[in-house]
């Protein structure tokens, strides 16, 4: 058995993944804003309640929004990378905790791809690679990039693993 040397180049997420994530966060927070805003107007105008801690919560909420809208998508695109070394999927990710995960492709059980209207408009899709121990998320891949990766994984998923010989 020869050690498996890095054979592929690191693949990064496309710039469009930043736009996609920002659009998703923007829509999510707009819905929250409408719901919470309506409740707050009712509370202040008709119930005459405006507790002091409400403004702290508003500040925290705005902070979370800015973090998720401005920094997180940019950092995710910067830090997320993957490559396929012959038989292995190698993924490096994490904004606060850096994770470097190596998974043998023969262990892959399910490849799950999904794309909503936002991702489809930008020609992107999410991929989730499932093994018996969990899953690896690859968010916002280009459609062609995802197709190539899926083909490579599928090729190995059909092959026979050494361990199964005892069955």
């Amino acid at each position, binding site marked *: 058995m020869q050690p498996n040397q890095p054979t592929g180049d690191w693949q990064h997420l496309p710039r469009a993944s930043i736009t996609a994530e920002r659009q998703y966060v923007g829509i999510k927070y707009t819905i929250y804003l409408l719901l919470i805003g309506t409740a707050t107007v009712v509370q202040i105008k008709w119930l005459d309640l405006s507790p002091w801690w409400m403004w702290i919560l508003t500040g925290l909420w705005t902070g979370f929004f800015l973090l998720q809208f401005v920094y997180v998508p940019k950092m995710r695109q910067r830090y997320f990378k993957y490559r396929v070394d012959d038989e292995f999927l190698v993924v490096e990710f994490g904004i606060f905790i850096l994770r*470097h995960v190596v998974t043998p492709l023969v262990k892959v059980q399910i490849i799950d791809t999904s794309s909503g209207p936002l991702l489809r408009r930008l020609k992107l899709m999410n991929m989730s690679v499932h093994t018996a121990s969990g899953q690896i998320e690859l968010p916002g891949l280009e459609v062609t990039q995802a197709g190539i990766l899926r083909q490579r994984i599928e090729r190995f998923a059909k092959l026979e693993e050494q361990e199964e010989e005892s069955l």
Partner: protein
Amino acid sequence: MTRRVHPLFILMTTLTQLRSLVIPIAVILFNDLKNDGFGIYTMIGVVVISFLLLVFGIISWYFYTFTIDEQTIRVNKGIFRKSERTTQRQRIESIGINQNLLEWILGLATLAVETSSDSGKPEVELKGVRLEFAKQLKSTIGTAVLPSAENAETAVTYTVGLKDLVTAGALSGRLGLALVGFGAVYQFANRFIEPYISRAFDELLHLSLMILLILGGMLLLLIYLGSILVFVLRYGSFRATRDKQRMTIGYGLLNRTEIVFHQDKVQALVIEESWIKRRLKRAHLSLHIISASGEEEKLLLHPFIRTSEIDDFLSRFLPRFQLQNPQKRAVERGFVYIVRWPLLGYSLGLLLLNGAMLYTLPEPFRYFGLPFLLLLPVYYAVARSGYQNTRYGHQDDLFVLRKELVNRETIYAPRLKIEAFSSHVSRFLEHKDILKFHLTLRGSTVFHAGYFTQEEFEDVLRWYQQTFLKPPASPAGTRLSDDE
């Protein structure tokens, strides 16, 4: 063959359903008794509920069938919502026989068939079969799936004696769990025994401090002895047999559990040595055999083995795992980062406890928590020397990861069983060139230890990233070499 389980299943289902209703029924009966004896309506209610449960049991039994053929095992059940579970016999990873107290009394058992799915529970579960029949079924299914000795190799067996079990129970650190259990029982019973407890407290207040301390100590001792008894009941008559590649492990004095598995299905061997056990040169061995999360995932192999006997024990019962002494040590500069969060947690916990005691307890008791603060530097010193034993190593196909601060845990995992190998480090520590190793097995099992260097991680990856594929079979007619 398609057949039904034993008719005693009806009684078992009825009693199980009744058991789940025992608390509301007991509360109703107790209230009735406290007022003016059992009312006629209460009695009618209890009889009607019991009758309905019996009818439910009969119908459940009628629709509960199973079929075993050469390829599959199928279980059909359900009255309104039908369910059919089928599993391929070749996918079976282990077969177990479990008996709870009720089944034990009725002479029944549950046959649990586990596969590699990560659903968290057995793929097929056959309840309410006679114990003898379950054993027969296990051997019928097991013979086809889990190859037995074809050559006349003698099976080897070991048992764990009562003395070892009692000592293992005494050192298992289950006092905390026992205290929680005691607290829960007290919470439930409190509403019924409150007046007696208040009276007892009033009488106790007049006693001297020494007697109170002795009484408290005796109560703790009683709970501790109870925890040992639970351990012995759970793992009593421990017996493991290896028949070539097939392993059978059975334990339990009341709820008997028996599991059969092929040795290839062992995901990892874990050797745990607590601080006290290390002084006694003893260890606790367990196996990870299936992917499912939950109790079945971690199987006890030996509760209290002498460390000097582990090597010999493994060569007889688990020859794939050989005892190793990993050489690569964790880096010195990582210690502070490993110990900071536990130390901070213990410090905060002790400070809060002392604060609460100072404000709530009377004069002689309020300072009792302060000496525990002295344990913090002791913990630091013990962890400091323990950390130097955090190591890793790999030899042939086996990876060894040892984590130690106060207690020591060593994991032996075959390379081909490791589902993913990863490193984790915070962005802050990334610049210090240190990281933790994470080793993921089937199911939700993750072992981790650190801190090691990036270079060491790459060394492990070079070992791990060898092919996982089965070598291609020689084409028909190929001439074999002399060795073959």
